[in-house]
């Protein structure tokens, strides 16, 4: 696994690199850069699985950076002095927020979460960043009906009928999505807020009917769990 550290303070960058290398051992390789331009070069040239990102780089608004970062295929852990903006960072879809000054143990927890992203789910994201040709746009998750796997990407269907393509896979997205999003099929995540009914079709097949009348297939392996979720929701 390859992780990129983006931090403009020399000593902090050195500290992150040193501690991460010690904590991750052979599980990951780390690179460190001081600014976003260098980070952009690295991300284009190499495939990274995760980012350790400082929110304030030479005066640029950290959340402009964050929207770009979380829209990528990699997961993002924020390492920042702006403790008061941690909740906002989670809403933008970060995996973890490490406040400065940080201890070795706190950094270790964040690294574990980054290195084993599949084990974690039910994040606090409220928005997802979407790459567009013009830049990064924010999509509010409450407006998303369902998410379908599309190779290494994911397709988001919005309430207004539009679709958006996200760089992260369905499995990666699961780690940051809120509990409203549950797996209903091997290729689908559904937003429970927009489910009207679950009904059985012919040949023991199950379907979810959404508020806009659309139907989603339900995999046999997910029926029981989905019933539980819907009962809890009721």
């Amino acid at each position, binding site marked *: 696994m390859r992780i990129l550290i983006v931090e*403009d*303070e*020399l*000593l*902090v960058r*050195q*500290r992150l690199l040193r501690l991460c290398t010690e904590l991750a051992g052979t599980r990951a390789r780390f690179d460190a850069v*001081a600014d976003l331009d260098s980070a952009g070069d690295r991300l284009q040239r190499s495939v990274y699985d995760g980012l350790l990102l400082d929110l*304030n780089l*030479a*005066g*640029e*608004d950290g959340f402009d950076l964050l929207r770009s970062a979380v829209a990528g295929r990699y997961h993002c852990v924020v390492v920042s*002095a*702006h*403790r*008061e903006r941690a909740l906002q960072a989670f809403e933008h879809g970060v995996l973890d927020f490490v*406040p*400065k*000054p*940080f201890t070795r143990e706190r950094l270790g927890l964040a690294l574990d979460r980054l290195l084993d992203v599949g084990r974690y789910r039910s994040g606090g994201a409220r928005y997802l960043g979407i790459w567009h040709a013009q830049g990064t746009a924010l999509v509010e998750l409450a407006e998303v009906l369902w998410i379908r796997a599309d190779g290494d990407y994911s397709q988001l269907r919005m309430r207004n009928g539009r679709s958006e393509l996200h760089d992260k896979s369905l499995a990666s997205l699961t780690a940051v999505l809120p509990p409203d999003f549950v797996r209903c099929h091997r290729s689908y995540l559904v937003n429970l807020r927009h489910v009207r009914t679950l009904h059985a079709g012919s040949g023991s097949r199950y379907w979810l009917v959404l508020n806009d009348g659309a139907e989603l297939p339900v995999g046999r392996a997910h029926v029981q769990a989905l019933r539980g979720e819907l009962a809890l929701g009721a």
Partner: protein
Amino acid sequence: MQISRSLTALAVLLGAVSVWLVLASPPPGTSYAQALEMAPASMAVDGTLPGRPPDGLDWRPLDQRELAGWRDPYWLRWRLPAPVAHDAADRAMRLSLRAASQLFWNGQPLPGNGQVGRTADEEQPGRIDIVRVLPPSSPTGTDELVVLASSHHQWFRPRSADAFIAVGPVESIYGHGLGAWLIAALATGALGAACLYFLAVRRGRPRVPGARLLLGLGVIGLALPAVEAWRPLLGYTYPWHGPRLLALQLLHLAAAVLLPAYIARRFCVAVSTAARVAFLAALVAVLAFLPGFDNRGAALLLLSLLASAWLLLRARDEQEERWPILTLVLAGALALPIAGGAFLDGPYFLFLAVLMGFLLLRHAAQLRALDRHNALLREERARLSLQLLQRGIQPHWLMNTLTCLQELIEQAPMRASRLVESLAEQFEHLRESSTRQSVPLEDELALCRNHLDIVGLALDRNIGFEIDADHTGLCLPPGVLHAKVENALTHAGAVACAEQPFHLRVRREDDRWILDLRAARGCAPHRGQGTGTRYIEASLAAAYPRGWRFVQGADGAGWCSRMELTCAS
């Protein structure tokens, strides 16, 4: 607002003057008359004064100017048509004469006024105005008043003798003018109350331009009606007439000087020395060369009012204050040529009382507004002090520095120790600065250098701060340069700031300090719109109300900031 204030002030003035004129007008049935004839009094063989009007006197027509110069005993004669019988028993006479006098009405002696004498030692001065109840009129149809008088105690020679009588019903003669003076007393009382209120408001507050001049004018406004009313209300023996006129003339002169002086000071109108000298010379010339007491007083005041109007027209600020004053001043200037001496004898006090009352109340309102402004400034200062401390411990900088410190403790303990010392010094500077409204430039520079030391220790590079300054005596609101340094570090980055050192140039031009700070530019698009800039602008506004300017912008590879501050002196 200024229109309603102007109209209110004008209406108050016109109302007071109208009431005065109505109450001061001669009551019905009263007639005024100057003496018709005059004659030197001839002594008896033994040198005594005659006890009754002799026959065969050398009467000549009255000449008030000539009479003003007579000292030795002399005779005056009035002849009046006798009234009809039904009101003949209820008549009185007021005689105004600067002399000791013995009166004979139709040949009958009336109570005397002082003691007529051949010399100053023999003479006992009489009162300048006397009232006598008259005996029945002559059946011949003509009443005759003959007065034996002497004026040895007249210390200066006035232009006219002003010898006249008023004859009418007893009630009119005794009560005439009292109502008008009641109006003057009310106006004086109101002015006195305004003065006391102004003094109470002013007490313990910082000085404001022209306050003393205004109080001086207030004192004159109180003294003038008192001196004027001395004669009609209390009366005095005639030798006091000269000093009273002199006092009135001096009060007029003082008012003529103080009113334009106050207006120039109050509205910050620059007046050249030549203009001041010319104005004073004109006043002195009026005093020295213009004949007649009333003429001199009227000329003095007209000059003063015209000068005041000129100053008010030249003033640029405070329109809402200037127009009501200008309206009153122009009304006074217009009344002087029209009413002349009559204006000086009464409406002038009212004019002065209304003008002074308006000025005092507006000045007091300004002091209260200044108080509110100062309270806001104190509040702003407290807020800025808090903000300075908060900026000093802002999470981004402090937490990053503490993270660097963590790393230094593990990797380079000696540098870590120096960083702790610098941090302690930084907080001491901030604590000290936040308690003060302004700090010397040297202290502010020490705070900046200390901040750069800390950042340099974390970066392991020195960040330079070059000074090109002649900054003796310059004080700044705390933290303004510090905020600029922080901004540069935040937006351009410490590395850029290490490669392009800060450069501060301080110079003085006329009444302004100019501080130019050049730093690395960086590439952040929103630079110059953040909390640092707002802090600087709020601090300068609080410390230099209406006397500051702050601009900043990119200049090539640098970011230039300029502060212009008006010198306190």
